[in-house]
C-alpha cells in the first residue's frame, strides 16, 4: 500500500511540481537542521581559522583589500559615466534602458552527496525570497541556478551538471551557442556549433539572456579547446567555467530587473 502511495508521490512530483512544492516546503522544516548540522564543522573550521590568524597576516590582508578596493572604486567611477553614455546611446537606438541587478549574498553550506550530479546547498530559502530558476553567481562568473527552494535553504544546480544548459554568446563577436554541462566540474561544452563559426580558444563566453532565465552579460566560461573532427556534424568546443564551481563558498543570488519573471514553480530548469 505504501509502495503504491510512494509511486503516486513520485509521479505526482514529476508531473505536478506546483503541488509537490508545498510538500517539499513542509519536509524542508524537518531536514534543514540536518543541513545545518552538516555545515557546522566547516563553519567552525572557518571561524577557528579566522580567530587564529596572526595580526601581521590580517594587516597584510587588510592592506591588500584596501588596494583592491581603490582599484575597484576607480573602475566604478569610470563605469558611472560609461553607463550613462551607454544608456544615452541606447536611448538613441530606442532600446530599453539597462538597469542594475539586485543581488542577495548567500553561502554554500553543502554539496550534494550524489556523485552523478553537481548540486550545492545554499543557506537562503523561500524566507529570503529565493525562487526557482533564480541565477546564482560567484565573484568570477555564473555558477548555476536554483532548482529547489526549501524554507531556509535551497538547492542550486551548477552549470557543469550534465542536466544543465545555458544560452551563451562569445563576447568578442556575439556568436550565439548553447553551453551544456558535461558532468565534469571544470568543463562545459558548446553544442551545435557549425564548423565555420568564429570561436577561438581563449574566447570569453557570456550569458546571452536569450533563455529569459539568466541575465545578460555575465561571464560563463572561457573556451579551452576547439576541434574539428572530420566526420562529426559540428565542431567540438570545450570551455572552462569562469566561476569557481567547486571552490566558491560565497555566492550571489540575482534578482534581475531586465527580464523579471514571476516565480513559476512548474518550470523545468
Amino acid at each position, binding site marked *: 500500500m*505504501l*509502495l503504491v*502511495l*510512494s*509511486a*503516486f*508521490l*513520485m*509521479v*505526482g*512530483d*514529476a508531473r505536478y511540481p506546483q503541488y*509537490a512544492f508545498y*510538500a*517539499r516546503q513542509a*519536509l*524542508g522544516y*524537518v*531536514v534543514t*537542521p*540536518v*543541513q545545518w*548540522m*552538516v555545515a557546522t564543522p*566547516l563553519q567552525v573550521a572557518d571561524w577557528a581559522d579566522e580567530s587564529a590568524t596572526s595580526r601581521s597576516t590580517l594587516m597584510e590582508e587588510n592592506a591588500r583589500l584596501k588596494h583592491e578596493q581603490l582599484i575597484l572604486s576607480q573602475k566604478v567611477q569610470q563605469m558611472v559615466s560609461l553607463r550613462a553614455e551607454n544608456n544615452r546611446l541606447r536611448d538613441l537606438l530606442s532600446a530599453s534602458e539597462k538597469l542594475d541587478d539586485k543581488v542577495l549574498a548567500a553561502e554554500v553550506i*553543502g*554539496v*550534494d*552527496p*550524489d*556523485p*552523478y550530479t553537481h*548540486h550545492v546547498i545554499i543557506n537562503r530559502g523561500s524566507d529570503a525570497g529565493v525562487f526557482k530558476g533564480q541565477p546564482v553567481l560567484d565573484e568570477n562568473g555564473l555558477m548555476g541556478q536554483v*532548482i*529547489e527552494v*526549501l524554507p531556509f535553504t535551497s*538547492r542550486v544546480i551548477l552549470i557543469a551538471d550534465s*542536466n544543465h544548459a545555458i544560452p551563451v554568446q562569445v563576447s568578442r563577436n556575439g556568436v550565439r551557442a548553447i553551453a551544456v554541462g558535461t558532468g565534469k566540474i571544470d568543463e562545459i561544452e558548446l553544442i551545435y556549433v557549425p564548423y565555420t563559426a568564429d570561436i577561438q580558444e581563449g574566447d570569453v563566453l557570456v550569458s546571452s539572456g536569450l533563455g529569459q532565465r539568466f541575465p545578460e552579460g555575465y561571464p560563463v566560461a572561457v573556451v579551452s579547446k576547439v576541434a574539428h573532427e572530420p566526420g562529426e556534424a559540428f565542431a567540438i568546443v570545450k570551455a572552462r567555467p569562469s566561476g569557481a564551481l567547486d571552490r566558491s563558498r560565497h555566492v550571489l543570488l540575482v534578482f534581475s530587473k531586465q527580464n523579471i519573471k514571476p516565480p513559476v514553480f512548474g518550470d523545468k530548469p
Partner: protein
Amino acid sequence: MSWRIFWVVSVSFFVAFVFAVFPLPRLLDFIRPEWVAMTVIFWMLALPGRVGIFTAFAMGLLLDALEGHLLGQSAFALTALAYLTGLLYQRLRLYNPLQQSAMILVLIGTYQLMHYWAESMILGRGETLLVLPSIASAIFWPVWHGLLSYVQQQLRLH
C-alpha cells in the same frame, strides 16, 4: 512506542542523515554507504513491531527532501527494503555479524536497484555503479550495528 524509544530512534536517524549528506571527496561519494537504509534495518531487527514499514516510509520521504530526489523515490525503495527485512528478520537476528553483512549486501543492493528503477522509470535517467554503495554498506554494517546495539543496551530499550 515509548518516548524514550522514539527519541533514541529519531536521534540515530538524525545521525544517519548527517552521514548521508556529509561532504566527502568526490571519489568517496561513489562508495558512500546507505546509512539511512542500514539504520532502518537495524531498528527493525532490534525493535521488531516498533519500527517498521511506516517508519521506513517516513524516513524515505525525509531523505528525498534532503537529497533532492523525486519526492517518494527513497520512500518507495525504503518501504520495499523494510518489507523484505520484515520477511527476513527472524533469520537475520540469529546470524553472526559476518553473515548479516552478506545479507545486508543483498538487501541494500535491492534497495539501490529499486531506487534506480524508480528514477529511470519516471525521469528516464539514473545513476549507475549501484554495487559500490552496497559493498560499502556491508563493510560498515558490523561497526554501525555494534554502535547502535551498544546504545540500545546502555539505554535498555526493548
